[in-house]
C-alpha cells in the first residue's frame, strides 16, 4: 500500500511533481501513466527515498520507506534498468543487494530463475541486452519478496514474448495481494495489464480511476456517409445532437445512436451509404487528457469529443 499525500517536488523553479495525493492499493496492478517528463520517475524515486520531497509525504505501509527495518522486504523497486556495473556479473549484482539484508544466495538463484537469467548469471552485466538488463532489474526488485513493487517502465526493451511474460508476472504478483505500481508512457500497455490507472501530466494528477471506468467514460461518435450532408446536418441539429462535416465529406455525429440516425434519415428520405460507430481508443483518450494537462485538475475522466479520430501526431 502506497500513500502519497500532497507530494510535491520542485527542482529550482520547475515543478516536477505538484501536490500529488494518491493511494495505491494492494491486490491490484496500478498503472502510472503520463508523457515523458510528467513526473512519474520523480514520484517513484520519492517513494523509495532517493529524492526528497519538497513538500508532502510518501508512505509505504504507513511509514516512509527509509523508516522500515527491512526496506527490501517492504518495497522492491526497479527505477533504471541500466543501473548495474557492466563489469559485475548479474549474480554478484543481486548478491551485493541481497547481502545488505542477509538474504541468502539461494534466494538470488531463485529470482534469477524467475526472470530467466540463470544461464547468464555469471556473465558480466555489460554483455546483457536491454531486455536482459530489464529482467535483472526485476530480479533485484523481487529479491526481498516485497509486499509492494515500484517499477518504472518495466516493459521497455523487452521483446513481445518478454512483454507477455512481464504482464503475466505483474498480474500474478497482484493476485498474491501485493501492491504493484507500474509506470508507463503507453496507455495500450497499461490497459492490458492494470486494474487501475493514475494519470499525471506536468506533475499534476489528471485522473485516478479503474481501467473499466476509464474505458466506460469514452464517448462514441458515428461516421455517416450520405449524398445529402447539408440536409442531414440540419436534421440532426434539430434533433438536438451535434454533427460536423469531415474533410472526406462524411458527417461525424455525436450524442446520437446509429439507430436513431438511421431512423431520422429514413423519415427525411435521406440516403445513407455509411453508418460507422467510432469508439476512440484508450490511447486517444489518454493523449487528449495529457495534452491538455494544465486545464485538468480534477480526478474526473473527461474525453473531449475532438478526441475522436484525432491523429496522434498533433500531440506533444
Amino acid at each position, binding site marked *: 500500500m502506497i500513500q502519497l499525500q500532497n507530494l510535491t517536488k520542485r527542482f529550482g523553479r520547475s515543478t516536477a511533481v505538484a501536490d500529488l495525493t494518491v493511494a495505491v*492499493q494492494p*491486490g*491490484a496492478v496500478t498503472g502510472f501513466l503520463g508523457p515523458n517528463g510528467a513526473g512519474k520517475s520523480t514520484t517513484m*524515486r520519492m517513494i*523509495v*527515498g*532517493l*529524492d526528497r520531497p519538497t513538500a508532502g509525504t510518501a508512505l509505504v505501509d504507513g511509514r516512509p*520507506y*527509509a523508516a522500515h*527495518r*527491512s*526496506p*527490501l*522486504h517492504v518495497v522492491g*523497486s526497479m*527505477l*533504471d534498468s*541500466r*543501473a*548495474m*556495473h557492466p563489469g*559485475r556479473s548479474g549474480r*554478484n*549484482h543481486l*548478491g*551485493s*543487494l*541481497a*547481502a*545488505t*539484508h*542477509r*538474504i*541468502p544466495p539461494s*534466494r538470488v538463484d*531463485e*529470482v534469477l*530463475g*524467475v*526472470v530467466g537469467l540463470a544461464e547468464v548469471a555469471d556473465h558480466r552485466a555489460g554483455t546483457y541486452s536491454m531486455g536482459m538488463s530489464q529482467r535483472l532489474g526485476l530480479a*533485484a526488485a*523481487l*529479491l*526481498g*519478496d516485497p509486499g509492494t513493487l515500484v517499477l518504472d517502465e518495466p516493459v521497455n526493451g523487452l521483446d513481445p514474448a518478454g512483454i*507477455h*511474460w512481464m*504482464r*503475466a*508476472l505483474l*498480474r*500474478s*504478483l*497482484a*493476485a*498474491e495481494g501485493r501492491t504493484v505500481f507500474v509506470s508507463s508512457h503507453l496507455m495500450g500497455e497499461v490497459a492490458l495489464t492494470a*486494474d*487501475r490507472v493514475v494519470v499525471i501530466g506536468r506533475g499534476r494528477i489528471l485522473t485516478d480511476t*479503474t481501467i473499466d471506468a476509464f474505458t466506460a467514460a469514452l464517448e462514441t461518435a458515428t461516421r455517416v456517409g450520405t449524398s445529402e450532408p447539408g440536409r442531414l446536418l440540419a436534421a440532426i441539429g434539430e434533433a438536438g445532437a451535434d454533427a460536423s462535416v469531415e474533410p472526406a465529406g462524411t458527417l461525424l455525429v455525436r450524442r446520437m445512436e446509429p439507430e436513431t440516425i438511421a431512423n431520422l434519415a429514413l423519415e427525411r428520405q435521406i440516403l445513407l451509404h455509411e453508418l460507422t460507430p467510432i469508439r476512440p481508443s484508450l490511447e486517444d483518450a489518454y493523449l487528449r487528457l495529457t495534452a491538455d494537462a494544465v486545464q485538468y485538475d480534477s480526478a474526473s475522466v473527461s474525453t473531449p469529443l475532438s478526441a475522436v479520430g484525432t491523429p496522434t501526431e498533433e500531440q506533444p
Partner: protein
Amino acid sequence: MTVTTSSHHRTSPVQAARSSTRQGPPGGRLTLGGVVDSEWLKARSLRSTWYIAAGLVGAVVGIGTINAVGAVLGQANPQAPADPLAGALTGIGLAQLLAAALGILAVTGEYATGTIRPSLSAVPRRPALVVAKALVAGALTLGAAVAAVAASFTLAHMIADRDALAANATEPTVLRALAGAAVYLCLTAVVGAACGWLLRSTMGATALVVAILYVPGLLALVVPGGDAAAPYLPANAGSALLQLGPTTLLSPLAGLAVLSGYSAGISALAAVRLNRSDV
C-alpha cells in the same frame, strides 16, 4: 478497487515466483554488517579493484627495489648514512594515489554506472553506506599495503644490505615506520572514498585528493605563520607516520591522530552531503 484474477498463471516462471514467495520473507533486517558484506562483495567482484591493488603493491615493491639497486650501485659514497629502511618506502608517494583511487572508484563507479540507485534503495539509511565503503576500501588497502611494505622491506634489504635485514626488522622504530606506511595508505583510501561521495565524479574526486595532499603544503610556504601549521597538514601528518627519528614533524602517534581526524571529518562531510542530496 478491482482484483482481477489473471488467466496467465500457467506461465511457468510466474509459478516459480509464486511458489517462492509463499515461504515467508527470505533474509533478515538491514544491518551495518550486511552492508559491509555487500560492499566487500562489490569490491571483490570488480577486476579494477584487483588491478589497482596489484598496482599499489607493484609501486611500493618496484620503486623500493629500484632504490635499493641504486643504493648498491652508489656505494662509491661511503659517507652516505645507512637507511635502516633501505629505501623500502620510497614508493609510498605513488602508492598513495592508487590507494586514493581504490576509495574513489568504490564510490564514483556507482554514480557512473547508476548502481548507486539500487544501492541506496537497499540501504536507505545512507550513512551506513558511507561507513561500509570507507571500511571496505580501507581494509582492502590496508591488506595490500601490509603485503607491499613487508615485501618491499625484505627485498630492499636483500639487495642493499643483506646483513642488516635481521637487525633492522626487529627495530621498533623501523617496524613502526613500516606499519605507519600501511596505515597511511589505508587512511588515504578512506579519504579517497569520502572525496568520491563529495564530488561524485572520478576526475573531480581525484583532483580533490591531490589538492588535499599537496595544496596546503604549498600554501604553508607563502602564508605568514604557515610554518607553525605545517606539521598538521594532511601530507605532513602522514609523513609523521613514516618517520624513523625525531624530525620537525609531529610524533608518529600525534600524526596518526591528526590524520585519523581528517579522515573521519571528511567522511562525516560525505555522509552529510549524501544524506541531503537527491540521487
